């Protein structure tokens, strides 16, 4: 592996967004950063800044109000990026499935690469999930632009989409 490909895997900076889960998984994500689990071993740091993030950890079932913000944050993370849905409610809605104000999971809104089950997902599961996400990340480059569903809905034709992509590249 070249130093470039290696460095992509060795330095995942994370961004974490709670889309209306119960905090359980958020707190476990925080716990993953603390001495017992210390994911800084893998170079992970929580920058809290979408523009400097590689791994996007999303928890929660995506409430209707968080939807737009989630998409916004997703678009702000520069490629290559991976999205990890942490916790059952981020995967498929969990216990909140089919409640009137939720979207039943992150993958209904943005493309998700890895799903971490568990309610709450325990730190070991989160570490496993991130390790798996890094495998996927090592295959991605900055050219892999995946669009969230809603853009595909809004711009069904390929031409429209190309325009959006160009806009995104220009930004």
């Amino acid at each position, binding site marked *: 592996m070249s130093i470039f490909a290696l460095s992509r895997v060795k330095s995942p900076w994370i961004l974490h967004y709670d889309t209306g889960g119960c905090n359980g998984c958020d707190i476990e994500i925080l716990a993953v950063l603390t*001495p*017992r689990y210390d994911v800084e071993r893998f170079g992970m740091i929580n920058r809290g800044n979408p523009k400097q993030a590689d791994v996007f950890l999303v928890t929660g079932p995506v409430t209707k109000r968080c939807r737009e913000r989630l998409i916004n944050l997703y678009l702000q993370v520069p490629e290559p990026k991976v999205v990890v849905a942490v916790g*059952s409610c981020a995967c*498929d809605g969990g216990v909140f*499935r089919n409640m009137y104000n939720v979207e039943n999971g992150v993958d209904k809104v943005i493309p998700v690469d890895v*799903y971490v*089950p568990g309610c709450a997902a325990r730190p070991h599961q989160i*570490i496993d999930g991130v390790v798996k996400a890094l495998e996927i990340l090592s295959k991605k480059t900055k050219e892999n632009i995946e669009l969230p569903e809603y853009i595909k809905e809004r711009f069904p034709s390929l031409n429209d989409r190309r325009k959006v992509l160009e806009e995104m590249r220009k930004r």
Partner: protein
Amino acid sequence: MLKMFLTSVLNLFRKPATHLYPFEPYEPFEDYRGRIVWNEEKCTFCMRCEMVCPPGAIKIMIMEDDTKRWLWNPAQCIYCGECVRNCPFGALTQENQYSPPLDKSNKRDWSEIEREAERLKLLWRERLRKKSQAKKSS
């Protein structure tokens, strides 16, 4: 201030509190509530587990040829153990191993399954109704 200063400097010479997972294996507690394991032999498809499961992570599909399938979604389950406690035939057990992460290749489309199970159940009820009608008329 002084205390933390000393602690910090001393920590340089102490062993870190880190558990080197995944390089060091981790063994969960004996009765950690992990994956649900289904024993096909004992199950009578009574549907009790599907009923008690709070998030609806268990779906039982009754196919059109009356064979039955028991499906469990690890990415939907909240690992409460309610199904295990309520199974009248002891067909379900809860392992102490947590579920591994999934990706696009091995995650089920649960909405699809829910819809399918619902549809199949309607068909099944229809068949039952017809059967009982046939019995009555004969």
